[in-house]
């Protein structure tokens, strides 16, 4: 018991002594855990498909058939294997207008009473009523409507009674990218044609000139009363489509059921629940392609920052171990102290990261909000929390074990005298630096004497620049996609996929930049601290404070340069690994990134360097070993 | 001059007075130079009287006599062996000084710190001399070794005097 208390007291004292370092460590680990949390949340959305949840909540159909007349329904309803059905419901074509935006819609006529199969779940507002329509959720987002707004359908005014989700159709904007059953099951997945037999109004946004089969990205799904739906039709816009929802005794037979009937002459068009489900997954996977590499990068950056912090503590740690060993204490006591400290800090960081991730995740997952379970806070499972805490603990352990092992192996005397690592000598560099002005002389020699630290610095910068370049590449890519999608600009609707991707990107960019700045701060601060003794000695020998500061800047830029340059190809590599097919961002951006990073590192070095030169030389020399 | 020292100098071989002198000079360096010539002969005389040394002519040939040399007797040789085996270390005179300070303070005759300061100055001067002499010697000379010993002991004494000063200053502050 006494020993535990001792360890706790030592740990608290140590943290207080190095409060700034402790805070920075917490921030770095928190950033890593926050990213991991978000990645896991999004992963949770895809791996355990909310489509299943939606299907369960809306009594989703196993097979949806699109008929040209109600007589086709009887045969299907009576087919072997069919357990239940709803419909056939009339489906009218229409154009919806709201607030200057317009889009094509399929309006399904429904009863006010709930159907037995496919009863869309209303997430806000109420179900259909005369004069009141219900809009599919992602479509409503894109259109910008909310419950209570007035919209125009084929020239007539309707109120938005509610917003709902369904499992019977793919969510906007994939309504017509969905599962039109093709000649083979395999070809069924991604087809350009809409599952609806015909769209009777000239489509607003059409890739081909064929109005007979709708083929666009921007068709939305709405529900209204049967009377209202029929009211939309006219001589030029006749009612030619009916939707029939089927529930099978064995849902797994859905594909076979549909395929058997799809090839007959005048057959209806079919959708199956498996196809619909996979389509929805694509929506989220798309985003995954952005978040995952982003998360990896952030995690790397966070670990790099932690590495810098831990690296500095290594030598202090060894000295402390030596001291304790000399007075009879065991390395295990010091290791226990360090471990306790790091664990507590890491756990604190994990909690902060979890909270941050929990708050930020909705931003990322909600545009995929066609599906249940993704509105508001994402579902947090115990496993997510466990993973995150696990990461934090691993980091804490790694940060402790490495120095502990080294310290245990080193001799007490060496640790006390800090003999372990003398600076390196590079004759040629020293000779070369002779001819240079004082700042360059100093800076070059600083890099030469501690090459490993310079390398660590370079690695840090490389990771930072990698992240920035990857993000730039994605921005360029996203811009390209946006400008190519004329459908979007013509009707003024926002593409929710791109929207969501951009939001994710913004979040990741902000986090990246924050972490990069933090990382840069750690690195420059570490550079200045490591050079304290040399700086003081140079001043004692007559170097001016400004020369010393410039020298530190030179040292920092020299070690940052290779890292910054390396980061460009690495960043692009990361981007292409995540998003297939993308062009390198414009050269000017890349050059600007490299130069900008170097300038940032230089400026960030100036402040701690100048602070360092304020301290009296004698004090520094007395306290620091070389 | 310690008698045993002169005795020991004769142990190697019988010598004339001036040869003895030369050997001492070599061993003592600058310190030896300051020594009075007469000192040696006085000591030799005493040793003769005590029967530890005998003076006689050195025979050169059957009929010629060389100069007179001093030579150890058997008793003298015994004495030398004894002396070489002794382990006593010359006593420093600290007790006297210590008592001097206490007496001065108790009787109010003088300021003990003043006494210490004066003594320190004297010792520092001596240290300076000894040091200079030491540095004038070449490396590895016998005299150099002796001088090093003297400087180190003076240094030790000075350290003690510093301690005295501290202690007496504190004592004054407290009273």
């Amino acid at each position, binding site marked *: 018991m006494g020993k535990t208390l001792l360890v706790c007291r030592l740990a608290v004292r140590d943290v207080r002594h190095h409060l700034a370092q402790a805070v920075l460590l917490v921030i770095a680990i928190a950033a890593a855990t926050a990213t991991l949390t978000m990645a896991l949340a999004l992963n949770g959305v895809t791996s355990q498909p909310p489509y299943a949840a939606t299907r369960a909540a809306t009594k989703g159909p196993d097979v949806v058939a699109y008929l040209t007349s109600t007589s086709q329904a009887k045969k299907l309803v009576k087919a072997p294997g069919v357990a239940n059905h709803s419909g056939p419901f009339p489906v009218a074509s229409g154009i919806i207008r709201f607030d200057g935006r317009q889009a094509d819609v399929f309006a399904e006529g429904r009863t006010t009473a709930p159907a037995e199969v496919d009863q869309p779940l209303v997430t806000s507002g109420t179900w259909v009523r005369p004069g009141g329509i219900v809009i599919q959720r992602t479509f409503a987002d894109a259109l910008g409507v909310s419950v209570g707004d007035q919209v125009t359908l084929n020239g007539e005014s309707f109120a938005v009674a509610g917003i709902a989700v369904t499992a019977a159709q793919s969510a906007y904007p994939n309504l017509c990218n969905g599962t039109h059953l093709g000649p083979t099951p395999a070809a069924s997945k991604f087809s350009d044609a809409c599952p609806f037999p015909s769209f009777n109004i000239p489509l607003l946004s059409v890739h081909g000139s064929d109005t007979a089969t709708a083929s666009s990205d921007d068709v939305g799904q709405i529900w209204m009363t049967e009377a209202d739906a029929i009211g939309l039709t006219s001589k030029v816009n006749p009612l030619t489509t009916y939707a029939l929802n089927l529930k099978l005794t064995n849902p797994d037979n859905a594909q076979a059921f549909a395929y058997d009937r799809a090839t007959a002459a005048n057959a209806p068009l079919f959708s199956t629940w498996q196809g619909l489900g996979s389509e929805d997954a694509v929506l989220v996977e798309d985003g995954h392609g952005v978040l995952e590499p982003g998360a990896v990068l952030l995690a790397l950056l966070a670990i790099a920052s932690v590495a810098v912090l831990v690296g500095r503590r290594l030598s202090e740690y060894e000295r402390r171990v030596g001291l304790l060993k000399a007075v009879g204490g065991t390395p295990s006591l010091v290791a226990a102290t360090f471990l306790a400290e790091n664990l507590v800090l890491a756990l604190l960081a994990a909690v902060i990261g979890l909270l941050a991730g929990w708050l930020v995740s909705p931003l990322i997952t909600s545009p995929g909000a066609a599906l249940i379970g993704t509105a508001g806070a994402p579902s947090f499972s115990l496993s997510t929390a466990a993973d995150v805490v696990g990461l934090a603990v691993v980091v804490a352990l790694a940060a402790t074990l490495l120095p502990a092992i080294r310290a245990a192996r080193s001799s007490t005397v060496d640790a006390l005298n800090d003999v372990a690592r003398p600076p390196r000598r590079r004759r040629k560099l020293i000779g070369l630096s002779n001819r240079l002005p004082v700042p360059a002389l100093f800076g070059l020699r600083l890099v030469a004497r501690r090459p490993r630290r310079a390398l660590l610095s370079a690695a840090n910068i490389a990771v930072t620049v990698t992240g920035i370049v990857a993000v730039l590449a994605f921005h360029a890519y996203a811009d390209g996609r946006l400008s190519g999608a004329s459908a979007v600009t013509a009707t003024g609707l926002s593409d929710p996929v791109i929207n969501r991707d951009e939001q994710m990107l913004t979040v990741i960019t902000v986090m990246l930049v924050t972490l990069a700045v933090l990382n840069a701060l750690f690195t420059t601060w570490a550079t200045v601290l490591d050079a304290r003794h040399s700086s003081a000695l140079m001043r004692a020998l007559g170097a001016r404070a400004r020369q010393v500061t410039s020298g530190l800047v030179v040292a920092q830029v020299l070690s940052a340069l290779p890292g910054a340059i390396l980061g460009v190809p690495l960043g692009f590599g990361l981007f292409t690994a995540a998003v297939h097919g993308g062009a390198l961002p414009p050269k000017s951006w890349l050059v600007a990134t490299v130069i900008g990073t170097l300038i940032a590192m230089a400026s960030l070095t100036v402040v701690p360097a100048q602070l360092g030169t304020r301290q009296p030389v004698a004090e520094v020399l007395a306290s620091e070993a070389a | 001059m310690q008698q045993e020292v002169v005795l020991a100098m004769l142990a190697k071989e019988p010598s004339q007075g001036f040869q003895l002198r030369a050997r001492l000079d070599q061993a003592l360096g600058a310190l030896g130079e300051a020594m*009075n010539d007469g000192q040696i002969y006085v000591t030799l005389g005493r040793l003769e009287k005590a029967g530890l040394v005998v003076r006689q002519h050195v025979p050169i040939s059957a009929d010629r006599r060389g100069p007179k040399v001093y030579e150890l007797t058997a008793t003298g040789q015994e004495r030398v062996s004894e002396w070489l085996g002794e382990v006593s270390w010359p006593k420093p005179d600290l007790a006297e000084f210590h008592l001097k300070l206490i007496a001065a303070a108790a009787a109010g005759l003088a300021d003990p710190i003043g006494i210490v300061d004066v003594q320190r100055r004297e010792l520092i001067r001596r240290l300076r001399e000894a040091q200079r*002499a030491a540095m004038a010697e070449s490396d590895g000379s016998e005299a150099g070794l002796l001088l090093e010993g003297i400087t180190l002991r003076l240094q030790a004494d000075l350290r003690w005097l510093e301690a005295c000063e501290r202690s007496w200053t504190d004592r004054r502050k407290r009273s």
Partner: protein
Amino acid sequence: MNEEESVLLARGLRKEYGSGEGLVRAVDAVDLEVARGETLAIMGPSGCGKSTMLHLMGGLDRPSAGELWLNGSRIDRLSERGLAQLRRHEIGFIFQAFHLMDELTAQENVELPALLAGRSPREARRRAFQLLDQVGLGERATHLPSALSGGQRQRVAIARALANEPLLVLADEPTGNLDSAATLEVLRLFEDLHTGGLTLVVVTHDERIAATADRMISMRDGAFVDETRLTGSTSGNLAGLIGLGS
């Protein structure tokens, strides 16, 4: 003392840390004059402020109050830039811990101040060799400090302090980390330099170093308490040292 002859002049020099209850007077209203070519030793117990005094004299720290004059110019109010200039050209400093750069050879260490002062690399190198010769380390010019003994390292540091022909050399416990033999090396060197006209102020614990000085000052609690003139004051009784004169 003629003011023109004094290299360093201090009047009412003070250095204080903290405030109120926690006020510490490291140097308390000290007056000092150092003549050209003089060797001055400052002795005192730990914490008496002698090192602080030296740092003030060398421009490594700023006084809280008082005046400091070097060769007739006022230096206590100099800017950081001015102090750097001072350290480069007028003052050489020798530390107890040597503070050599471990990755530089002896000659590279010694030439550093010359390079900082803007001399050409060739000239700086030449001067470094010359100085190393002077301190008796000519053959070890290309050795790293790790290959040198303590005494040799301090001699390299002394050579470094002389690189730019300073007016004044300040030494802070130069033999603090050295054994007896190494101390003797340094002593000899100081004697030689003194003969050559060097002005030297040494702060030391070691009475042997103090004994080489022309003047010795005792310091306690930030103030000078005693001064002893050592030149020309021998008792002339060498033999008295060994008790052979009885």
